């Protein structure tokens, strides 16, 4: 499979496409070099992107119980993602415990309890301003029957060291119960924030053992190009993609679908 050489206009067009899909400039230029070597051909471009995309990795939910932390900057969709995962596992008949460990934001507890109150799940929360570690401790202690604990955490800006440290304290509470905890620390990245998500991941990994990414708000026109740079530098896989505010608007990540959306081979949505 050998393509034609790219004209300067085609080069510019491809570079623009990648930058507008939130690839870093560095990554976009590196991909362009690879494509130039192999020639201009839609199959070549797709193949190059696929070979560089983070691979699919399933959620680590096989040990019972499993503990998942959902973390990220403010407003990216953590609480909604927790509700979606609770819904998904409850439908599979699992014994789900939802832990409201955001004791900071006004009505964070009401938001999460409202979202899950019609589901057959156990909700453990606490007062605003109370210690989030104690809530988690209580949840783990009082629910030996659980198969999965989904822990919602307060939003925090990635450059705020104090808040990142607080997160590691919370993770330590889990470790008191089992060295295996937490099975997943999922960093939620808002698709509309684009390449900023790369900077967030680079900051959060310093002190937080991130195991996977959740890409949200992909019902926008965002394409999620930053996951390529995160994979290059940190080898953090993407696990889930969210594309709406309803409980079913979540799916496992698929490299093919992300690449197709970048190249504009579908409506740009992941909800096919």
């Amino acid at each position, binding site marked *: 499979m050998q393509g034609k050489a790219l004209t300067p206009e085609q080069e510019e067009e491809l570079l623009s496409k990648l930058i507008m899909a939130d690839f870093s400039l560095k990554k976009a230029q590196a991909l362009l070099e690879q494509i130039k070597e192999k020639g201009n051909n839609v199959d070549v471009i797709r193949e190059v992107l696929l070979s560089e995309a983070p691979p699919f990795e399933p959620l680590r939910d096989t040990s019972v119980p499993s503990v998942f932390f959902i973390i990220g900057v403010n*407003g990216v969709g953590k609480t909604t993602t927790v509700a979606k995962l609770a819904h998904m596992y409850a439908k599979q008949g699992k014994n789900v415990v939802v832990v409201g460990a955001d004791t900071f934001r006004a009505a964070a507890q009401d938001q999460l309890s409202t979202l899950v109150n019609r589901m057959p799940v156990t909700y453990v929360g606490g007062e605003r301003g109370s210690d989030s570690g104690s809530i988690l401790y209580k949840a783990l202690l009082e629910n030996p029957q659980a198969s999965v604990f989904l822990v919602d955490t307060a939003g925090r*800006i*990635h450059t705020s060291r104090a808040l990142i440290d607080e997160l590691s304290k919370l993770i330590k509470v889990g470790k008191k119960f089992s060295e295996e905890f937490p099975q997943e620390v999922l960093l939620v990245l808002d698709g509309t*924030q684009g390449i900023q998500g790369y900077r967030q991941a680079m900051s959060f990994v310093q002190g937080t053992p991130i195991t996977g990414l959740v890409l949200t*708000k992909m019902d926008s026109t965002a394409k999620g190009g930053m996951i390529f740079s995160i994979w290059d530098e940190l080898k953090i896989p993407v696990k889930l993609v969210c594309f709406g505010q309803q409980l079913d608007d979540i799916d496992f990540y698929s490299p093919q679908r992300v690449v197709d959306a970048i190249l504009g081979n579908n409506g740009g949505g992941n909800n096919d």
Partner: protein
Amino acid sequence: MFEGLAKRIQNVFAPFGSKGLLKQEDIDQFLKDLRWLLIEADVSLPVVNELVERLREKLKPQTGIVSPQDYLLKTVYEELTALLGSYRPLKVNPRGISLYVLAGLQGSGKTTTAAKLGYFLKRNGKSVVLGAADPYRPAGAEQLRVLASENGLYFESFVENGKVDIAKIQSFMKKSLHDVLILDTAGRLHVETDMLQELSMINKQLNPQEVLLVVDAMLGQEAANIAKSFKEAAPVSGVILAKADGDELGGAALSVAYVSGVPILFMGTGEHIRDFEPFDPNETAAMILGI
């Protein structure tokens, strides 16, 4: 915010120190460097391209000038201040309560900003009501109610049967003796046409003094699309940048200001009620350019 951009932009101007003359090829090199810099600062690509073209038209080769660097700085400064608009206070309704509608993407910071803006206006002597008009977000009204009561602001819910009750807002405004009503609307994406339609209806029927687009300072390439779609759906009159503490480059700010054509009026710099300040475009432009 903008500190990162300020730091990097110095390098683009540096090579043009005191050469005494500025050739067309210098200008081309300068624009090329500036273009990469703006792309790396997360300014939306179409905005970068337009900005660079506008500068290309303005910049002319110079002979015998003392400092080509000053010439470049001055031209970019003018362009930046034009782009960022100039500072103005919020419009006030001379005949009654002033209505400010907050709109924006899901999670952009609207509810928090409603409380911060209310608190800011209260400290300036206004009697402020926070009005809940988000029927969709679970506990969205409760969030606003808690923020109002913690900060000594009045609260009123305009959500009835899962809808925004426009008539209730109208009659509230007719009777109210307060100075300001800040309406916190639901988050919506720039591609949700029915939701944009709803926003458009609210504004047509209420005719607010200000429609303020609350944008996340951490937005990526989407920033330009967002500004464009909201501007088309509603008479956006100003921008409030939330979560400016999460971004040091200011790319989204430049994109949104450029595409919306309305000024950035305030900036949120943290989660606390006082983490909020008026935005000064001239000061910001000078800071970015280090002058």
